[in-house]
């Protein structure tokens, strides 16, 4: 499964490369920032903040239809809500990895888009 849905993003932005590049910049920046904060809150045991950030990550990831990241963040949100803390540390690191991969792929796509846009 692809980390995100290029076809849907192209549809939303009607193939406007500038719009897509802006979206990628915003989503990449926000996902990395939110995930770093989430890991920090998990470390401190601040579960309401963990829940809120997991929710925010789902919203940001859904903008590029990154269903896998959305699903992983949802698992953490539910766990934090129900104070099921047994797997939350592991899950948050898995999410961090998935976000890293997603952002890398997004930036990769952005590079290709930029190259074809300039060409």
């Amino acid at each position, binding site marked *: 499964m692809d980390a995100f849905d290029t076809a849907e993003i192209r549809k939303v*932005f009607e193939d406007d490369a500038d719009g897509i590049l*802006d979206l990628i910049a*915003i989503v990449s920046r*926000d996902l990395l920032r939110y995930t770093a904060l989430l890991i920090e809150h998990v470390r401190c045991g601040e579960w309401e903040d963990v829940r809120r950030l997991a*929710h925010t990550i789902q*919203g940001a990831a*859904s903008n590029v239809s990154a269903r896998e990241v*959305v699903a992983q963040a949802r698992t953490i949100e539910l766990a934090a809500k129900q104070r099921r803390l047994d797997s939350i540390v592991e899950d948050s690191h898995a999410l961090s990895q998935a976000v890293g991969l997603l952002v890398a792929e997004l930036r990769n796509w952005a590079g290709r888009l930029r190259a074809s846009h300039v060409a």
Partner: protein
Amino acid sequence: MTAAERALPHDSAPPSSALRILAVDDDAGTRLTLVSIIQAAGWTPVVVADPEQAYDILTGPDAPPIALVDWEMPKLSGIELCQKVRRADPDARPYLIFVTINASANDIVTGLDAGADDYMVKPFAAVELQARVRAGLRTIAVQSDLRTRLREAETIAALTKPLRETMPICVYCHRVRHGAAQWSTLEEYLHTEINVKFTHGFCPTCYTSHVKPDLEGGA
């Protein structure tokens, strides 16, 4: 802040007279996505990050008829925003669509019970959101038509109210009394009060008793 974020429309007046759609979401990526989806459909986006600002727009003059509302936002949740808007003016009724990541059946029930008219779970297809906005516009049109008809019916009911009440009528000249002590012919009264217009003719009985003898006598 990216160039796109700086370029996002805010609460300023839209440049065109196209239908305005309000979107409120504290996530910059979602705002950018919604702007693109709204513009692609030919509507004008009015996009804000602050739900309190969204409330002011929705309850102010020239409020957009449709709003896309995020659930989880700082200061005021989407749920609270819907409830506040509904309490503010039950007759204004902007069409509110939740656009949220909250996907459980309980969430959907909570959102709709808070006063939302529709509910969309992210991620979603752009065409689906546009179709739901169009469905909302149809609902708004029907509601608006019903309100117009209701107002017309109320006006007619008020005008014709005296006709459903007991009205004194003179046994000799058949003038009716209205107001304090004003007497008018039935024709004058109906014309003045409810703008009935009369054309003159004769009924079959009067034709036989009046018109026909006149015609025959004349011949």
